[in-house]
């Protein structure tokens, strides 16, 4: 789905880019507050949903070529975080939905997980 469709589904506000969100297509997502896990398991091109709002979230996105970040449960990121995202052209979306609700909404509309199922 396009980032614009995704933003509409999550009733989310874009606060970091002027870019046309219709031009970005995202089919996979990874939801996590642990950047160590994101770095280990998230596949390139995936959307990142998180409740953490510090600058290292954007740094992690830079390293992994993550095209956009959704901050969940009404969290507002630090100014430094928004600034770094702007400098790097990474859209930041803010949604009032919780992580669970956000994932449920996107999953129901066909968004796929970022990683393959792990054996246990």
């Amino acid at each position: 789905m396009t980032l614009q469709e995704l933003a509409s589904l999550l009733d989310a506000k874009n606060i970091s880019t002027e870019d046309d969100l219709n031009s970005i297509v995202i089919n996979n997502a990874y939801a996590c507050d642990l950047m160590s896990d994101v770095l280990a398991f998230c596949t390139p091109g995936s959307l990142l949903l998180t409740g953490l709002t510090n600058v290292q979230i954007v740094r992690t996105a830079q390293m992994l070529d993550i095209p956009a970040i959704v901050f969940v449960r009404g969290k507002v990121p630090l100014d430094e975080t928004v600034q770094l995202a702007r400098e790097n052209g990474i859209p930041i979306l803010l949604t009032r939905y919780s992580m669970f609700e956000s994932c449920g909404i996107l999953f129901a509309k066909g968004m796929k997980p970022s990683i393959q199922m792990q054996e246990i």
Partner: protein
Amino acid sequence: MGAPVCLEYRIEGNDFMVAGAASNNIKNTLKMLGIASDICRRVAIITYESEINLVIHAGGGILQAIISEDHVDLVAKDEGPGIPDISKAMIEGYSTATEEAREMGFGAGMGLPNIKRNCDEFDIESTIGKGTTLKCVVYFPQN
């Protein structure tokens, strides 16, 4: 490509605002040199995990990338407290990170295993009270 491109950065300990800037510079340099994006991403993961380790555990150190025609040598060197048991540090989930690092989303004990997974050659030496040197090599596939 002619002579190797050498990049070296001083990483400050406990500075979470700047952490990752050096890794981003290394990644951008590789991109500019036309290196494939999956290789750039693997190098970025290695350098970023190393940079975060220098910030969290070592009180800072040096991060170095030497980009040659067919590979990149990566070195993270510090004069920190050293790693008491490297085999333990290589176990996924084992972590000695500070509370501050955990609040930033790190300290899951995935760093060194993730570095090893993303490089082609991996070597780590550590002496208690003297510091740690991590050396990695990533080869560029020839088309």
